[in-house]
């Protein structure tokens, strides 16, 4: 247990702890906060994310999503699979309101993103942590600063930034690398930094767009294990991937896209259809 994590436990025990049976961990505050929030704000039956009849046509006429229906309950772990160009990234862009659906509804935590005023978009994005294949880290900032950046630019008071950053760095296992810059890190460590940054807002949903696309198989497994652990803490995870081996081995929910259609949505599925 890193010393920084040890301090965080004390801070987090002040919060209502809903899961008494679990051993103390550096991540308890994330879990308790996520579950606590879902109890005050959302009814237990309401899914975190609902897509209804969603069609996305880009301005150039390209139909990237067609009549997509998808319901994702809180706490789910979903693989989004399909060949390149199937529409996975487009779906993710709709979820973070980077694009707006041409038709249909995208409802995140009860809010219809199509009718969300522009000013509210940043607040929605803070409920989501996003991770990309290319990490998107700032090269001149250290690991610690990269993670803190997400809090600084959203107006988090100084005093709250330090403990939150230390806590997520402990969770992803980068406490010792906190002062290094991305170029001094391996690909896996860079991706863990990006995951820490995605987590630092205590999001309800982590979306990862091919997070292991640039990593070798062993490191890919490491990243996957981290995402599974985050999911166990109550955070919903959606991961777009090409990695058939991982998807088939884990037997989680699989949503397969092809040319914009959802061609399969199977709990406990493999990468490819098994009949």
């Amino acid at each position, binding site marked *: 247990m890193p010393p920084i994590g040890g301090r965080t436990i004390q801070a987090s025990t002040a919060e209502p702890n809903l899961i008494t049976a679990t051993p103390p961990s550096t991540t308890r505050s994330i879990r308790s906060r996520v579950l606590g929030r879902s109890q005050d704000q959302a009814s237990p039956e309401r899914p975190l994310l609902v897509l209804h009849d969603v069609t996305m046509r880009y301005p150039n006429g390209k139909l990237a999503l067609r009549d997509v229906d998808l319901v994702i309950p809180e706490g789910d772990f979903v693989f989004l699979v399909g060949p390149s160009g199937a529409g996975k990234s487009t779906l993710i862009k709709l979820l973070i309101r980077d694009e707006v659906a041409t038709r249909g509804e995208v409802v995140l935590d009860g809010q219809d993103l199509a009718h969300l005023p522009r000013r509210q978009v940043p607040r929605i994005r803070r409920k989501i942590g996003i991770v990309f294949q290319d990490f998107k880290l700032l090269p001149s900032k250290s690991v610690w600063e990269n993670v803190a950046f997400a809090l*600084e*630019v959203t107006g988090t008071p100084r005093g709250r930034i330090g403990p939150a950053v230390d806590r997520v760095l402990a969770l992803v296992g980068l406490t010792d690398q906190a002062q290094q810059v991305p170029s001094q890190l391996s690909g896996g460590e860079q991706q863990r930094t990006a995951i820490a940054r995605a987590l630092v807002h205590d999001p309800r949903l982590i979306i990862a767009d091919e997070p292991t696309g640039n990593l070798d198989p062993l490191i890919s497994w490491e990243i996957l294990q981290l995402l599974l652990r985050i999911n166990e803490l109550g955070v919903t995870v959606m991961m777009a991937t090409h990695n058939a081996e991982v998807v088939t081995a884990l037997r989680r929910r699989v949503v397969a896209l092809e040319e914009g259609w959802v061609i399969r949505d199977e709990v406990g599925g493999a990468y490819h259809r098994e009949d």
Partner: protein
Amino acid sequence: MLSFVLFSLSRAWQGFWRNAVMSLAATATMGLMLLMLAGFWIIQTGLLAGLQFTEQKVEVVGYLQPNAQANQIEVLQSRLEAMPEVASVAYIDRDIALARFRASMTAQGREDLTRYLDSNPLYASLEVKLVDPSNVRAVGDAMRADPNIRNVINIEDLVDRVLTVTNILRTAGTVVLVVVGIIVLFIIVNTIRLAVVARAEEIEIMRLVGASDAFIRWPFVFEGAFVGLLGALLALGVLAAVADPISGFMVDFFRVLPLQFGSLTRDLVVLVLGAGVGLGVLGSWLSVRTYLIR
């Protein structure tokens, strides 16, 4: 609110130094452009003053009949002074006219032939200065209509030609200044855009982690203002440094002109600082905007 401003200022400061080469290049460009703008503005101001000076020299001279009575002249003089087109009227009696003539002959180094005359051959006159030289015709006609006036020198055609030239020069000066201003605007806005584009990834990350538009925009706006301020100080520094060597020339050149150096300097400082900070802010605002609108 205060913490937001402090945050934006500190991010602007960091942003400036993090990419120091780019920022200093932008500042240098800003300084050069402002210097160019200031140079053209000084030329334009001098030109306008010169033209005004030339136009103010226009006066209508009416020679009086030798038999005109002093009280008639006074009546005529006050009638002319009452005209709205007239700025002032001076009565030049024959003695003054002769003295002036002699002085001008001496000044030109020519022999004064009037001393061979036994009487003063010159006429007394009224010299009328105009509010606006384009009114020369109305004033000339009014004088010609008076029986005490012997003749009025016909300067109307000459004045027309001078006015044509001065108006062309005025328009040309303004056009050049406006064109230079637009060029400066584009170069500065583009330079700042480059500095913002170089940080597109940072802006992208800010958007993705849920930063509001204000948190993204204001650090860049402050940074643009800072670049503008530094560029303006640079330009003013250069102007101050070259002011001494060329001031001798400037004083000689401008001495005859109705220029006030105090207000010229003050206007120049306001222009350079205002244009620098204003364009810096405008440039960043526009550049960041393209990343915010989605």
